[in-house]
């Protein structure tokens, strides 16, 4: 269940940030075709906040795998299985209908829902989700996950979170920037600021158990890699050497952080492993050129990273245990910031050309590349933990925004905040 979250007002009224100011607004920019047609009827009962059926509808639509019937096209609003007239629902073209009931309990709410097969006129599953007061959105996302998994046979990633850096629009003169690290639900709601700094914050990375963030902080005007415990709020620097400490990436077992560090006396960064407990480092690359932006494969045996050892930034892969380093990217003069998919079979990356910077997917088997976005300043792609949606930073009307695209490239959304939003990372699944 989502933990109860507190916001902290800033002293001196400098940045009195509330959840609503920090929240992201979602706009669908490209619709879908060919998704599984489904209808989510408004649930019986009421609870504070957005209606559960709206949250679920938006989740399923955003995945790109469902064609969700708009509420105004519903022939009826059944609140239970017994009320459903399957005849009129068959005319909507929907395959499935979800009906549900919300009831209050001592500590919060109980959500029950049934997934109905419209053509056979039968229920294919009934479920119950408990929600603590204040965690209703998380419960609604769990409803989405259950529907997704039942109908697609694949785990949903709706009850997850994102961490991103936001630079609020500057409205004072002299203009002064603040940098914020924000954690929000994956749909942008319930945004909470977990760090504010007058110096840049970069590259948030979730620990595999979802309780900590590693990130780069320039507080004190030099970069450190910091680990922040999201539950207790405590922070500690894990890499604080002179020079560059950048691009943290957790190993799947949570024991190591791969990072880009400047070699002693060197200019360009190399890839190192940092023990997340002790801070001890092990050097993995040692070549002239910038090596940065490492990412672990899901099985922990490999790393992909960006290197310009060949003259321009390209994506390389190596065994963590050591061995030869293989170049993966050959299309375009600029390939960087690789991230493995959840199944380890593809990577997404930033590809640059004269047309600008786009997000592309590279399949590791046949090395085919598919461009997923239009650019021209797309960067920092991150996968949902089930690999179905990619989130990335882009620019729209002069501001940094977060955008999502389904892995097949068909469904696009834009999440815009009050200021410049950048550098996002999708959390792992919540522990069940």
């Amino acid at each position, binding site marked *: 269940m989502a933990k109860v979250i507190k916001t902290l007002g800033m002293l001196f009224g400098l940045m009195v940030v509330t959840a609503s100011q920090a929240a992201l607004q979602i706009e669908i920019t490209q619709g879908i075709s060919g998704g599984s047609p489904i209808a989510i009827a408004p649930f019986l009962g009421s609870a504070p906040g957005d209606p559960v059926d709206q949250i679920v509808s938006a989740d399923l639509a955003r995945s790109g795998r469902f064609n969700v019937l708009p509420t105004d096209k519903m022939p009826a609003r059944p609140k239970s299985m017994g009320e459903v007239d399957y005849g009129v629902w068959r005319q909507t073209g929907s395959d499935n209908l979800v009906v549900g009931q919300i009831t209050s309990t001592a500590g919060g709410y109980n959500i029950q829902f049934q997934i109905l097969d419209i053509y056979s006129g039968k229920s294919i599953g009934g479920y119950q989700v408990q929600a603590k007061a204040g965690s209703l959105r998380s419960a609604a996302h769990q409803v989405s996950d259950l529907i997704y998994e039942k109908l697609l046979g694949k785990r949903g990633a709706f009850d997850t979170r994102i961490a991103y850096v936001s630079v609020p629009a500057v409205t004072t003169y002299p203009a002064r920037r603040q940098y914020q690290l924000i954690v929000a639900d994956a749909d942008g709601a319930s945004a909470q600021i977990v760090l504010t700094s007058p110096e840049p914050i970069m590259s948030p990375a979730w620990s595999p158990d979802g309780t900590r963030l590693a990130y780069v902080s320039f507080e004190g005007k030099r970069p450190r890699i910091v680990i922040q415990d999201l539950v*207790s709020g405590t922070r500690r620097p894990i890499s604080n050497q002179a020079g560059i400490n950048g691009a943290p990436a957790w190993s799947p077992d949570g024991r190591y952080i791969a990072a880009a560090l400047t070699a002693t006396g060197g200019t360009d960064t190399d890839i190192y492993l940092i023990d997340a407990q002790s801070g001890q480092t092990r050097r993995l690359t040692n070549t002239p050129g910038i090596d940065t932006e490492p990412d672990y494969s899901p099985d922990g045996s490999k790393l992909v990273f960006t290197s310009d050892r060949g003259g321009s930034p390209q994506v390389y892969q190596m065994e963590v245990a050591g061995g030869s380093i293989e170049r993966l990217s050959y299309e375009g003069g600029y390939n960087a910031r690789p991230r493995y998919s959840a199944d380890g079979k593809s990577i997404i990356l930033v590809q640059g050309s004269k047309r600008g910077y786009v997000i592309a997917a590279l399949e590791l088997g046949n090395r085919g590349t598919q461009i997923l976005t239009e650019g021209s300043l797309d960067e920092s792609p991150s996968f949902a933990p089930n690999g179905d949606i990619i989130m990335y930073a882009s620019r729209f009307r002069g501001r940094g925004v977060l955008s999502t695209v389904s892995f097949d490239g068909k469904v696009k959304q834009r999440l815009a905040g009050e200021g410049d939003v950048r550098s996002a990372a999708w959390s792992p699944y919540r522990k069940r």
Partner: protein
Amino acid sequence: MTRNFKIAALVLMGLLLSACASEPLVEELPGNSGSAGGATTSGYGAGGAGAVDQWGAGGAGAGSGTGSDSNYYNDTPAKAVVYFEYDSAAVSPQYMDVIRKQANILSRSTQTRVILEGNTDESGSPEYNIGLGQRRADSVKNLLIANGVPASQIDTVSYGEEKPAMPGSEEAAYRKNRRVEFHY
């Protein structure tokens, strides 16, 4: 030097600070003990009591408000700036006068230290741009050394694309952002 800036900021602002206001910058992270450093944590169950935004509305120290038009955001103004071509860390000949002048300033006293801040435009990947900004700062550092400045008087840091001097996504802004700033 950053420490002088920070002490000046604390004095100027006179904020109600936690007891750790005069601690050295480096190892303490705010949010744990409320010590100096400028960043504050909030939310997610952390009480955050004592974690104070050191920098506040007053701004970080000397020089803000002088209207330097080389920096829209009015970060502490640079004493000198060297600009760069796209994707390059090579210092163009037209900036050698800037280098020589700063080298003269630095050579006059072994007490003078400069921080060279390397920056890039926003195109490309941010972490890679940290590396590119560092190359630019190191290029300038090497030229200062070649002009007689002891390496011990020169510090470098790269902000990559994170601290643009000029907002915007056109070349006119990008040209202003590919730079190394001299800060004393």
